[in-house]
């Protein structure tokens, strides 16, 4: 006779899609079905459909206000969808959170005053049914020297490490990270992602929102790009880069005229930063040839292949409406 599986039993983690021990309802860790969330007149998420399989590491990319934090808030039950269905680990978000199998780092989540770091780690462990060993948490979050410190005395990066410790304390199957490396120094950031990659390798599902495109590029199996509440791209970092087939034509100019530049042959997006103009183009040769005929003084002309950032800019600025519309 086999014992029934309960909510708090740990499911075996496996990448194998046919792993017999993995209950069928958990093949999908995260699911949005036609999810819309409005805040007053603002539509933060607009009829989103998204499935994330158990074991995937997914980056959520998008400009500010694209709906990243709203998506994470919905998955954690902090928000209710205006319409549509959200499932986390096959459960309602509230039930999934109560089961203790989710860990999360929220954007700008404060830490309580008058608490010591070690105390918070102990507290976080006791919140979950199957916590990691204390020493493991402290080692993974790099808190060894900080356990006796009062929370008020921590730097921004140190506080972020404490938040990370809280996120992993319950040895979660599913981890949500909203801008996790903000305020971390380069070294901490590198160690953080190395740890996350190791976690992912053990079959955990990780969904993170970030502004840093190189993090998405290096860490995620899959990148979902949100823009104004819609998914504008979903695939591997490589496939998203490939979607912007063309090149970037970049040059310095004193008299930028975006309207005119946008009409050049092949140009799909125009980005102006100071004197530097970047044109995303599907036909660099034609673009450059036409650019010369404009008789605009240009310097430092270069043509490069698209990186993820170019792809991101192209994807999130190619829409029909002006960008300020969501404000």
């Amino acid at each position, binding site marked *: 006779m086999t014992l*029934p*599986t*309960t*909510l*708090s039993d740990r499911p075996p983690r496996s990448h194998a899609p046919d792993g017999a021990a993995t209950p069928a309802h958990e093949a999908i860790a995260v699911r949005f079905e036609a999810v819309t969330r409005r*805040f007053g007149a603002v539509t933060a998420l607009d009829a989103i459909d998204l499935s994330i399989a158990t074991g995937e590491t997914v980056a959520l990319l998008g400009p500010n206000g694209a709906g990243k934090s709203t998506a994470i*808030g919905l998955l*954690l*039950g*902090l*928000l209710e969808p205006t319409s549509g269905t959200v499932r986390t680990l096959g459960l309602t978000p509230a039930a999934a*959170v*109560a*089961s*203790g199998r*989710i860990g*999360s780092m*929220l954007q*700008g*989540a*404060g*830490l*309580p*005053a*008058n*608490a010591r770091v070690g*105390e*918070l780690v*102990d*507290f*976080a462990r*006791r*919140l*979950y*049914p199957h916590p990691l060993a204390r020493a493991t948490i402290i080692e993974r979050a790099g808190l060894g020297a900080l356990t006796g410190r009062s929370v008020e005395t921590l730097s921004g990066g140190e506080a972020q490490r404490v*938040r990370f410790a*809280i996120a992993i304390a*319950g040895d979660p199957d599913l981890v*949500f990270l909203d801008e996790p490396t903000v305020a971390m120094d380069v070294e901490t950031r590198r160690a953080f992602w190395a740890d996350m990659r190791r976690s992912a390798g053990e079959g955990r599902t990780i969904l993170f929102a970030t502004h840093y495109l190189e993090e998405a590029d290096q860490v995620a199996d899959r990148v979902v790009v949100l823009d104004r509440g819609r998914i504008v791209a979903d695939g591997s970092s490589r496939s998203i880069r490939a979607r912007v087939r063309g090149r970037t034509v970049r040059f310095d100019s004193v008299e930028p005229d975006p309207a005119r530049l946008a009409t050049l042959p092949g140009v799909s997006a125009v980005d102006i930063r100071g004197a530097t103009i970047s044109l995303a183009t599907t036909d660099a040769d034609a673009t450059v040839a036409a650019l010369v005929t404009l008789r605009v003084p240009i310097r430092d002309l270069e043509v490069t292949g698209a990186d993820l950032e170019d792809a991101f800019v192209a994807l999130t600025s190619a829409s029909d409406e002006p960008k300020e519309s969501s404000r």
Partner: protein
Amino acid sequence: MIAISHAARTSTAFGAFAAFVTIEIRRALRNRRYVMFSVAFPTGFYLLYTGVLASGASADSAIDGTTWGAYFMVSMATYAAMVAALSGAIVIARERSSGWTRQLRVTPLPAAGYVAGKLVVAYVVTLPAIAAVVIAGIAVDHVSLSAVALVQMFLSIAIGVLPFAALGLLIGYLFDADSAQGAMMVSLFGLAILGGLWAPISSFPDTLATIGRMLPSFRLADLGRDAIAGRGPDLADILVLAAYATAIGALAAWRYRASEQRASG
């Protein structure tokens, strides 16, 4: 199967709650504001008013069928209990602003567990505050009370402080971190002064005294005075305090639910 998973979840929720109460009590007792305003100040005021500043009168002079020392000990013990119970307001408002409550909501700690935990903490931190005043009364002013009277007084104030613990929750959910402290101070001093904790209500003009007698602060101190006078607890005091606790508790629950829905935005 359902029964097992339900039991497993209940035990997780309970463990989470116990963990929360533990860290909250430690944090509260370590809070310098608490130690100063709830423990040191009321005791200091008590000693000042019954000693140095008691012009003519002394701790032994008679009032209301007892001594000034015993009478004012009850007043300041009540005041200390009020400060301690209300002090949660500032912490709750801060934790809501800082996003710590949001972080707790994405752990297995039940949302209601946070509120229940804060209430338990309000009760626990009240005890040292009352004790400090009582110890000063006995040790310094030689207030002599029977053990029964002492225990009755202590328990009356410690248990009867519920409306103030509820008021702490209400203020914590009604105000943001910047204004919670002001709101708490205004409530505290308003209730303490009008309730006759600083100057006996018998010295008030009639109208003011009538208002004062309707306040929970007066009723709480009155329960303590019943004890030191060797009377049983006054049923009217208990009913008034229970009514305040119910009404304020309902308001706090309403604000709590509203903030839960908004906090997510």
